[in-house]
């Protein structure tokens, strides 16, 4: 059995009289230490799947097991990095980073030690006493990643974490994420709508398609890291992925 096993997961939202099939019979396996990207146009259910994996949303049908255990609620070995404003604006970077530890009742001295270590790892030294409104978008996401790593998670769930960043910062953060991931081995499930981001990061790209949300295809990316987006091999993968989601993009454009 795989480390993460998603089996027949369906999610139906009820919006007034209307039923929205966000996910339909999704099956997905991931091994420990794998980097998975969930890719697709908006409305394909990739964020919903991540929500279910994080235990924040229950599935309407189907099961998720982690390490053989059925998932019920947030898993102790999983951490979530949220899209944009997952930081507490009234807490300094350091206090934000220590929050997940505080939630687990870790004593203050230990919290301080772990967060100090991670401040160095994610490159926040000198910014640890700043408040979120004093930090740039990239720095804020570093805080979010550091906070997620404090509990040494085996699963890192990331919901379009770099979606709001400019292209340059985004590139830097992608490389930084891979560097940190090499230090803290974990299974990463990373939601994105950017094809080059997925090809740059993932071991396997899970392409999803909307209405209802289904897995269309899973494309492995077996390029060595660090990957160079200018190589023909990289572009070959981009083309493969683009072909798969082309229909969805044009459907979305003509809607």
């Amino acid at each position, binding site marked *: 059995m795989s480390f993460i096993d998603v089996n027949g997961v369906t999610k139906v939202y009820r919006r007034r009289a209307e039923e929205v099939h966000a996910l339909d019979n999704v099956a997905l396996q991931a091994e420990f230490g794998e980097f998975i990207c969930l890719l697709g146009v908006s409305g394909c259910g990739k964020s919903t799947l991540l929500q279910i994996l994080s235990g924040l949303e229950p599935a309407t049908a189907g099961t998720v097991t982690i390490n053989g255990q059925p998932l019920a609620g947030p898993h102790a070995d999983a951490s979530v990095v*949220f899209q944009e*404003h997952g930081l*507490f604006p*009234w807490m300094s970077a350091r206090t934000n980073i220590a929050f997940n530890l*505080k939630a687990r009742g870790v004593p203050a001295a230990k919290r301080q030690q772990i967060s100090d270590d991670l401040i160095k790892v994610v490159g926040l030294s000198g910014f640890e006493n700043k408040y979120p409104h004093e930090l740039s978008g990239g720095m804020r996401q570093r805080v979010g990643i550091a906070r997620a790593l404090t509990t040494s998670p085996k699963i890192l769930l990331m919901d379009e974490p770099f979606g709001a960043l400019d292209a340059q910062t985004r590139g830097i953060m992608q490389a930084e994420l891979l560097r940190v991931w090499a230090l803290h081995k974990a299974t990463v499930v990373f939601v994105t709508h950017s094809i080059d981001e997925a090809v740059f990061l993932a071991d396997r790209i899970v392409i999803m398609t909307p209405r209802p949300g289904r897995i269309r295809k899973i494309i492995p990316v077996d390029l060595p890291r660090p990957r160079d987006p200018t190589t023909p091999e990289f572009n070959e993968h981009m083309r493969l992925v683009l072909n798969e989601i082309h229909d969805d993009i044009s459907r979305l454009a003509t809607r």
Partner: protein
Amino acid sequence: MASFISRLPLGAIPLVLLVIAWEITARAGVYSVALFPTPTEVANVFLKEWPLLWKHTQASLARVAFGVSVAFVTAVPIGLLIGRYKTLDRLMDWTIQIFRCFPGIALIPLAIMFFGIGDRPAIILIWLAAFWPIVISTIFGVKNVERTLLAVARAAKAPDSLVLRDILLPSALPSILTGFRLAAGAGWLTVVTAEMMAVKSGLGYMILYAQMIFRPDQIVAGIIVIGTIGLLFDQLIRMMRTYFCSWQEGLVLEA
């Protein structure tokens, strides 16, 4: 030039104009001099009878400070709980909406019947008047917390006590302080009224007594003190807000 203008206490200009208009009206003899004191006469009350003014001001201030403080420490925890738990909110909503509409003044006869003449009825009325605005603004503040932040707490399995103290309280603080500002105003209004009926000291009592001994200058002096203290309260709470809610910088237009 622009910065010079922005630093002028512009708020003082209408007040100065008002005093000038008052002086002119008084000197023109539009109204009987015995009934309409001049600014000079009122200024004399401040100069020559300040021990009397100070004694009554102190009495009123002590009552408001006590009543509003009690309201603050009782209303904030109750508001946090009501804002957090939906069932409690549904349970209390009608009651709050009814009770907050009772003008403190209407309760004075009851308060005198129950508690006699003295500090007790006055303080209880101030507490009641100040309680509702703080409860309501606390509930409002809690309900307006950013959803993602609660998801962060849920994903981290944060216990409810931590959510209330580290997330909901600071998140609601700007709103709580707005409620506090309204409460201080309501408390101040109530104290003056209560002192006209239920107590034998304080500015309200002094003003009513001045009417009986025909001292319009004392009445106006008392009113000026009431207004000035109202202004000082307001400035103080604004300063508290700037101090405690500096994390809001850049998030809102003006604190």
